[in-house]
């Protein structure tokens, strides 16, 4: 119990101060992603063609068994939404973690070692940054082919530079601080300094950036999938639901695109809200006030 109490206390404190609504929304979405198999009533990939294009249950032809309606192939929209959460969350989290690791490593190394290493890495980062993101994503997706794993790598490759810049700046300023000097004098090896002193302080910024980036990544993933270069069908993904629903617009099948869109918006909004709050929470000035 001794080892756990401080960590538990920290977590409880965190939850107590966090904005509740986005947290709850997030929890619901994450839960549906994890427990999709239990929550969804119908199979998201195989539909019943006899039930195609049913509107949501509150409309005339609607059926309570298909609460949000069905799509062109008779698949239940709600089930697809629930399973789609899985894909979106998985891709976004994995891509952001990947980008963060890559970027942080590059940034810290550049900032810490300075000199030509710094210059080289920064040049590389800058030129990478100038490539328009969505287009680059399309390009890469066409080259390496569609697929969940590929998208994660692509998205990570597009966004890692943000982390590199931020961590490099932080590292540079941290390097000049006293405790780093003391550690060097005490004879700490370079990697040890990085690990124990620089990384923990850089992490706060990285986490803030990451939480804000997740929203962006989710939307970009949806865009890429919408354009056909992301997650391939028939896997349920919100972007796919949007592109398939697009054909039904003119005929008035509005539920095909409203639901996935709302889902995306809710997910991104929750992440953004939490990210904003996280930024305040992790700000050292704020932390001093609470004590």
């Amino acid at each position: 119990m001794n080892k756990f109490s401080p960590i538990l206390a920290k977590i409880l404190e965190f939850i107590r101060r966090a904005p509740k609504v986005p947290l709850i929304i997030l929890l619901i979405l994450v839960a549906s992603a994890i427990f999709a198999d239990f929550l969804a009533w119908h199979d998201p990939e195989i539909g019943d063609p006899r039930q195609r294009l049913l509107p949501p249950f509150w409309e005339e032809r609607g059926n309570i068994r298909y609460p949000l309606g069905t799509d062109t192939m008779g698949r239940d929209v709600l089930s697809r939404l629930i399973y789609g959460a899985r894909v979106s969350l998985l891709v976004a989290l994995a891509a952001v973690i990947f980008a963060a690791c890559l970027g942080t490593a590059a940034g810290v190394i550049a900032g810490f070692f300075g000199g030509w290493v710094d210059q080289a890495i920064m040049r590389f980062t800058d030129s990478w940054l100038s490539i328009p993101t969505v287009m680059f994503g399309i390009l890469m997706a066409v080259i390496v082919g569609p697929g969940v794993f590929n998208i994660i790598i692509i998205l990570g490759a597009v966004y890692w530079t943000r982390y590199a810049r931020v961590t490099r700046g932080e590292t540079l300023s941290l390097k000049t601080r006293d405790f780093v000097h003391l550690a060097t004098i005490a004879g700490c090896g370079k990697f040890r300094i990085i690990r124990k002193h620089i990384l923990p302080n850089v992490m706060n910024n990285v986490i803030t950036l990451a939480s804000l980036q997740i929203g962006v990544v989710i939307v970009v993933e949806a865009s890429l999938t919408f354009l056909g270069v992301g997650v391939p069908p028939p896997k349920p993904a919100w972007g796919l639901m949007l592109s398939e629903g697009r054909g039904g617009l003119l005929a008035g099948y509005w539920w095909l695109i409203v639901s996935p869109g709302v889902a995306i918006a809710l997910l991104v909004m929750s992440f953004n809200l939490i990210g904003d709050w996280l930024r305040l929470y992790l700000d050292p000035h704020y932390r001093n006030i609470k004590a």
Partner: protein
Amino acid sequence: MIFLAARIGPDPAFMIASPGADEGELNSIRDRFGLNEPLPIQYVIFVKKALQADFGESIYYGLPVSEIVWQRLPASLKLVGAAKLISLGIGLVAGVLAARRRGGWMDNAVRWFSLAGLSMPNFWIAMLFILIFSVKLKILPTGGYGGIAHLLMPAFSLGWYFSAGYTRITYSSLLQVLNSEYIKLARVKGLSEMSVVGKHGLKNALIPVVTLAGMNIVIMISGAVAIEMVFAWPGLGLLMYHGAIYRDFNVVQAVILFISVSMVMVNLLVDILYAYLDPRIRYQ
């Protein structure tokens, strides 16, 4: 900056490898486009030709690429320009309104509004617009290139996201400025509220907005791809997308290069604008 442009070259060059693998029968075509030379030589040829604005021919269209890009450019510019105006207009107005009445209902409403704008994928907003305005209300056309009616929805969809950003920046920047010394001085001097906020406050609050606007222009062009697809708007984004799908790498190279170069130039312009807006920078 040349380094930036140079970096773009090798990446599309990789594409030459992949279609070459599964289109082995098209050797004659590859010959025609000089694809059989080793990669470094191709790259050098590319740079040489690019400097002369010769991007070769499009495999798909059979026309010189520079012509195609040139044709599509006005459409893209129109879209981005209109979207920029809309987003700046909404953003600035909303930001100023919110900043002036802090803590009021207006402030909160604006904040939620901008958050919503940031969270929704632009092509979804586009489709919602189509649903509401084209299908239910039947007042706007669903797509295609044309006059104001055709431009309205795409521009709005594209601009919505960015107006959220501008709102936030204007809001926080204006707040900061309004609290500073010389604004208080202006108030004490007895200048009218309009003059205080409008002339002094706004001019300095605009600096970060301009930065953001500069950075956003290119994001807009690339983000327009999805919208162009939804509205069948013939712009550069769609061109690049088709190019990528059909392995028309001359087109892809040209478009990416063009956009990167534009980005660099726009950043330059923004820097110059900076110097104009903030006299402090000029004396550096």
